[in-house]
């Protein structure tokens, strides 16, 4: 622990010395009485001062939490030498708030007794954090000296984004070869009825359509669509974000991405993840609960890093974007580089869907004629970008704060059901 003197030390020394000197010079014994308490406190405190040995541990309720959840933490003081008065500060990131308890706080540690300092925290925003850096400041009885130390007992804490409600998932236009929950175009063993055809040697009796066979006078069998899985790649545009207060387009996009990943993985699809921006982060498509954790962990590392470098799809490893994969892009459409990359994806034949996380509500209202014109031009430009996607046969749904993510997904689904894919 590092020792520091408080301003009181100098002040008391000065008062004691001045009082005694004045008593000597002026021949007033009363001034000795006036100076005596200061001199005594100074002498006692300076002789007694010792650096306290404080044994501190930090305990975290759990290592994983969801946005908005409460988390219990304890600062445990071991049965050490004790301290008359000790200021304790647990360093907290801005996205973790205090719900119950006092931080910082001043406590007394009794020698030989264990002491717990409980705190209840609220995980305000998603992210990967490490908690447990504790600042200690021990004061002696009269507060002339203080001993300071920083104890590092950091433990990782991952706060996952909450999930958006998703009613229906987009069906990929192409499926893969493994069994899953999507009805494939190909005819094979399955449940969904596809067609009937004439019986050929090798057909199973259970597939015979007896009604059709009776009408035609020969054996006809039912054909079915196979149930297959699909490859889904969640493409996150992290070139830029719009942020206002505690809300940002990136937060919304991450929540939606986590929801989509969880839902697609639950129905045995392979899900991959690409965050495309100032930094590139990717995960190869895979299945299972482990992949969900991998994706969410990768999301926690996602952040907006300003970059002027032009990026295109060349930087993304080829295996990250398997052929016939459904690419769900979540973008605020704030950066042309992301729009170009997505159009390039479409041009390469990927089944692309764009969910625009609207930044309009997060932009401060512009007043004044020139600013209003600038705002209108910006909106028109956004419409133009949207138009480019529509012309390329890419459905674009605007997800704003007034509507839910499920509505945007329904909108895209409706477009895909009714619109024909544009020639590429």
């Amino acid at each position, binding site marked *: 622990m590092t*020792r*520091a*003197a408080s*301003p*009181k*030390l*100098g*002040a*008391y*020394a*000065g*008062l*004691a*010395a*001045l*009082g*005694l*000197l*004045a*008593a*000597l010079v*002026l021949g*007033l*014994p*009363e*001034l*000795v*009485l*006036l100076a*005596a*308490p*200061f*001199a*005594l*406190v*100074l*002498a006692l405190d*300076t*002789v007694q*001062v010792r650096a306290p040995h404080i044994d501190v541990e930090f305990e975290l309720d759990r290592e994983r939490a969801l946005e908005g959840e409460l988390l219990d933490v304890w600062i445990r003081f071991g049965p050490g030498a004790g301290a*008359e*008065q000790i*200021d304790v500060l647990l360093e907290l990131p801005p996205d973790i708030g205090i719900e119950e308890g*006092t*931080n*910082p*706080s*001043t*406590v*007394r540690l009794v020698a030989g007794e264990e002491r717990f300092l409980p705190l209840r925290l609220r995980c305000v925003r998603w992210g990967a954090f490490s908690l447990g850096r504790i600042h200690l400041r021990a004061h002696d*009885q*009269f*507060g*002339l*000296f203080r001993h300071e130390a920083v104890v590092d007992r950091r433990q990782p804490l991952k706060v996952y984004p909450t999930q958006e409600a998703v009613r229906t998932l987009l069906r990929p236009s192409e499926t893969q070869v493994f069994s899953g929950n999507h009805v494939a175009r190909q005819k094979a063993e399955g449940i969904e009825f596809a067609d009937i055809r004439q019986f050929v040697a090798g057909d199973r009796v259970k597939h015979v359509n007896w009604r059709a066979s009776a009408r035609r006078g020969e054996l006809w069998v039912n054909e079915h669509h196979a149930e297959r899985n699909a490859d889904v790649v969640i493409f996150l545009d992290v070139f830029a974000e719009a942020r206002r207060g505690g809300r940002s387009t990136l937060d919304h996009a991450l929540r939606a991405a986590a929801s989509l990943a969880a839902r697609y993985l639950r129905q045995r699809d392979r899900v991959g993840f690409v965050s495309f921006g100032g930094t590139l982060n990717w995960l190869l498509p895979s299945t299972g609960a482990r992949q969900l954790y991998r994706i969410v962990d990768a999301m926690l590392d996602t952040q907006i890093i300003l970059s002027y470098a032009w990026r295109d799809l060349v930087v993304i490893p080829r295996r990250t974007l398997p052929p016939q994969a459904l690419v769900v892009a979540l973008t605020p459409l704030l950066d042309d580089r992301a729009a170009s990359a997505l159009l390039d994806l479409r041009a390469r034949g990927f089944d692309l869907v764009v969910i625009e996380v609207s930044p309009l509500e997060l932009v401060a209202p512009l007043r004044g004629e020139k600013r209003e014109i600038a705002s209108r031009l910006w909106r028109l430009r956004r419409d133009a970008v949207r138009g480019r996607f529509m012309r390329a046969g890419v459905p674009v749904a605007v997800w704003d704060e007034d509507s839910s993510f499920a509505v945007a997904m329904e909108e895209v689904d409706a477009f895909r059901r009714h619109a024909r894919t544009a020639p590429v």
Partner: protein
Amino acid sequence: MVTSIGCIGLLVTAVALLGRWAALLPWGFVGAGAGYAVFLSLRPGAVDERAPLVAAVFFVAAELSFWSIERRSWRSEGQVVVRRLALLFSAGLGSAIVGGLLLLVTSGRGIGIGYEAAGVAAAVLTLAVIAVLVRRSRALVHPPRRGG
């Protein structure tokens, strides 16, 4: 004159408390003490019998003033506050009792050259001890750098 010096001292203390300037605070007490010293020197007769009480009040006021300007925006634990108040009360009471006893002992005896010499020697010794302690505490706070 006494009132004006005392008022200046109180004013400086008030300014230091309002501005939370720890460096200015002792000067306020110096002013108040100077007022008391002027009052004593103008006052004819024997030793002021209220001096132990004044000393206790002076010390408690200094402690409370420094407590109030501590840079702490959070509440301390109840036990800490109670113990600190108890310590303050005890220190004030102790200084009053010890001062009273000292006053009682010295007032009963005639003043001779020997006692005066002993008093001066004790005062000089106390000052020397304070100087040594302050120097030692500074050495503890700012230890000399190794190497170089």
